[in-house]
């Protein structure tokens, strides 16, 4: 097929408000409000519900033709009033859309007006987040939201001896894993933002319309007093930079901690900041991971992998699969990002292999590459299932959205312990597909 220059075919990115909503769902008592037409909130809820298999509430200013003509002020004021009265939130995050950005609504000004109308009442913080859907991707929407939360709320009081962790737009299971590691390291932290409970909630005796757990407004305020900020994803580090610039807080951002080396550097950063040694339990986990890598190497070595999804996750998985002796042959992300290119360069240097790097590309591009450079395994979200079927290769589902398999919200990839499961899973997929029932490698025709 000829090359394409214009169309996006089977997108591997979403728009900014989607990332914003995901960040806000990690704030306790927060109601995300999309200032736009109803479809934005509804279709995002649809995607989020079927991935996380949890109820997800996102409100909308329900803009329609008449209101577009006169500007969205009346709708936004009314929406704030409704949310405040009906849902009693601890925070309202107001994200814009392509519609309201284009008509030029000044959300900050409208929110200010709302505050003035209610000057004698105690309102929750209302944070405007500019997320036009025609710029960037959901990755930027997430980043902007974290930054807006800090910018609007953080203020310096007295040092708290904590470390701020910005997780990036990752799964609840990964956030839970990070929290466990921090606990083992005896590190007090503030997690920005933490959806590990709200988007992977136990079945209890109540239903809540707002995230029942997550970072609190007070904790967001307190981020200005921490001793450092660590971003697990390089594309979620605007907040880190802001805190450094504004409050002189040490900042670190590295590879998303998947696999051996990336987890090593994450944990050693914390140890260094906290002045502690690697605890025995983590040391054993690390040892077990290496043991698992040894067990798996005969099967994994030399297997070609294609990985697609969010830039940080793809780069980290590429690094990990390279550690396992696999060949990250094709990597693809929908976002446009120089940092991704840099990351992939360093993975290439480490592993002495040259992956095909698709940046700002879609699944069509990925598929064309796979046709030219056959691979053994595909890693990414559910949308890759058709490629996998057509090319007769297995698909390991990691990323968002995953709607055709269970457990997306419960399967971690961060840290040593999750790394062990990941190695086993990878090797077992390879065994299942490329080895026969008596354990012999099936020879390709």
């Amino acid at each position, binding site marked *: 097929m000829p090359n394409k220059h214009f*169309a*996006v075919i089977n997108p591997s990115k979403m728009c900014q408000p989607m990332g914003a909503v995901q960040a806000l769902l990690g704030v306790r008592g927060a109601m995300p409000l999309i200032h736009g037409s109803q479809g*934005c909130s509804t279709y995002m809820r649809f995607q989020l519900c079927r991935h996380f298999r949890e109820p997800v509430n996102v409100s909308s*200013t329900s803009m329609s033709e008449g209101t577009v003509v006169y500007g969205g002020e009346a709708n936004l004021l009314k929406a704030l009033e409704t949310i405040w009265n009906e849902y009693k939130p601890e925070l309202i995050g107001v994200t814009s859309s392509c519609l309201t950005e284009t008509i030029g609504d000044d959300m900050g000004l409208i929110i200010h007006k709302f505050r003035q109308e209610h000057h004698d009442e105690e309102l929750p913080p209302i944070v405007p987040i500019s997320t036009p859907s025609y710029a960037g991707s959901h990755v930027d929407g997430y980043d902007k939201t974290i930054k807006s939360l800090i910018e609007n709320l953080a203020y310096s009081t007295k040092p708290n001896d904590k470390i701020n962790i910005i997780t990036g737009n990752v799964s609840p299971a990964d956030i839970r894993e990070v929290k466990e590691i921090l606990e083992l390291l005896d590190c007090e932290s503030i997690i920005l933002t933490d959806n590990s409970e709200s988007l992977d909630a136990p079945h209890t005796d109540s*239903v809540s319309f707002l995230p029942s757990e997550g970072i609190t407004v007070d904790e967001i305020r307190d981020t200005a007093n921490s001793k450092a900020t660590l971003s697990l994803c390089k594309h979620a580090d605007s907040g880190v930079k802001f805190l450094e610039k504004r409050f002189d807080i040490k900042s670190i951002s590295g590879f998303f901690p998947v696999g051996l080396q990336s987890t090593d550097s994450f944990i050693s950063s914390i140890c260094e900041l906290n002045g502690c040694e690697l605890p025995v339990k983590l040391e054993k986990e690390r040892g077990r991971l290496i043991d698992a890598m040894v067990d798996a190497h005969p099967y994994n070595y030399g297997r070609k992998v294609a990985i697609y999804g969010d830039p940080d996750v793809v780069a980290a998985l590429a690094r990990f699969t390279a550690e396992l002796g696999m060949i990250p042959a094709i990597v693809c992300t929908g976002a446009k990002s120089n940092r991704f290119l840099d990351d992939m360069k360093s993975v290439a240097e480490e592993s002495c292999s040259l992956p095909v790097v698709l940046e700002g590309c879609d699944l069509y591009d990925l598929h064309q590459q796979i046709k030219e450079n056959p691979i053994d395994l595909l890693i990414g979200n559910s949308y890759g299932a058709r490629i996998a079927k057509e090319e007769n290769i297995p698909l390991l589902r990691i990323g968002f959205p995953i709607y055709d398999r269970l457990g997306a919200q419960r399967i971690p990839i961060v840290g040593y312990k999750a790394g062990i499961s990941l190695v086993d899973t990878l090797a077992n997929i390879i065994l299942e597909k490329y080895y026969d029932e008596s354990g012999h490698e099936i020879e390709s025709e």
Partner: protein
Amino acid sequence: MQSAVKSSKNSEKSDKGNEKVTNSSKLNVSVNKSLIKDLFTDESSSDEIVIDPVPESIIKTLESRLDHMCVKKSEDGGGPSCNTASVPGIVTQRSCVYGGARVVLMPITDAIHLVHGPIGCASCTWDIRGSRTSGEDLYKTGFSTNLEEKDIVFGGEKKLADTITELNNLYKPAAIFVYSTCVVGLIGDDLKAVCREAEKITKCRVIPVQSEGFRSFNKSLGHQLACDAMLDYLIGTGELDGKLKSEINAQPTLNIVGEFNVAGDLWAIKPLIEKMGVNVLSVLTGDSCVEDIANAHYADLNIVQCQKSSNYLARQMEEKYGIHYLKVNFFGIEDTAKSLKIISEFFQNPKMIEKADEIIKTEIANVRSEISHYKKRLAGKGVAVYVGGNKAWSLIRAFEELGMNVIMTGTQNGLPEDYERIMETVSEGTLVVDDANSMELSRLLQKYQPDLVISGAKEKYMTHKLGIPFCDFNHDRIASFAGFKGFINFAKELNRAVSSPVWKFTPKKYHGIVKNE
């Protein structure tokens, strides 16, 4: 709530859907009631449902929302207020006009569905319809012009034209539908002009769909715009594919309108119709090809399954091509039988009528024995239905046939005519709710404590968290529920939802509390 169904005063163009039913539906030749009644006499014929009197205010909610809920009483047939804008700030279950248009056209299998807008509109909605195909699968691919900042500033027409040409070269599709999104409406790209030009260059049908998301609070307008796109650019343009008109009309033909083949529903309906000796000329739009729809105007009859999305199309085709239409419903045994009957009687062919009776008799006997096991477990259970389309009324009888009671029903985008249908169909004491938001829904479910909820993905997990069994009747449905065969699946799925032992471990049913009350 005294008189008939209320409609908003400022109701929009979408209210075309309110037009009174035209003569054609009166063509419904009277059905041989006694035959059907005989067939349906059953040990558990539906008893009157007894529900405790409901207080004035059904649940705690906003003042402006109170008259969007009502309980059917015998003395007045009034329904809830409807077709008004949702309250800004509420977690609405509604979608947008673009979404409405897309769901109607998306099942056309050999077309490209190109979303002209920023990436989000396409990436949140591609391949979510659940419509199955027996051939082409181009419709499952997600296409976007991916408008970026510079396109918003300088306009997206050039990019759109280039994208259309490129896609035509890549895929050689039977047609390219181009959907307008919110921002395209604002920046004023001339969709029609670009499509017209692109059609000249590509020689492929390029069809504009003016579905700017914000055009109405009611996505029914989107359905209508999708129908307009087919009426203006597709239906009537067919070249018969080498066949002669006489050949096509050699035996009675019909179009199935408003059937989207979700989970394969069409495949349970089509064989029944064909067995009667009627040729299905085209389906609008489930499992359909562009060329079939282009030839749809040659049919003798239209039958309308989803009357929410497609009555408008049938009415327009009647006006333009003089094709009569019948309203049918293939959910439930009785309604499926009735639908087959009225189709056979329309053609006034004694042989066909005989055949229909025969099919009905055999199929019903089969369904009876197949569902008896499930029925025992389902009988007496209360059901709450909350859906986007015609299912708010078309499912009621199907539940009754399983001995279940519909205690609550409602829709997100109901028009007055929809609520008239609902009020006619439901039993006394049934709660009817319009445009319920997520908080209202959960309060209603806790108050009415149904044994089963029928709805879509957005409502599924809230229902589960409340400890209530759930059955998806929307995009994510996994089994065909239409026709006689589908009814067996339907009973099976409902039983699967209700009878799972997992509900023994979720004791909060009937004890649930809602925070933020």
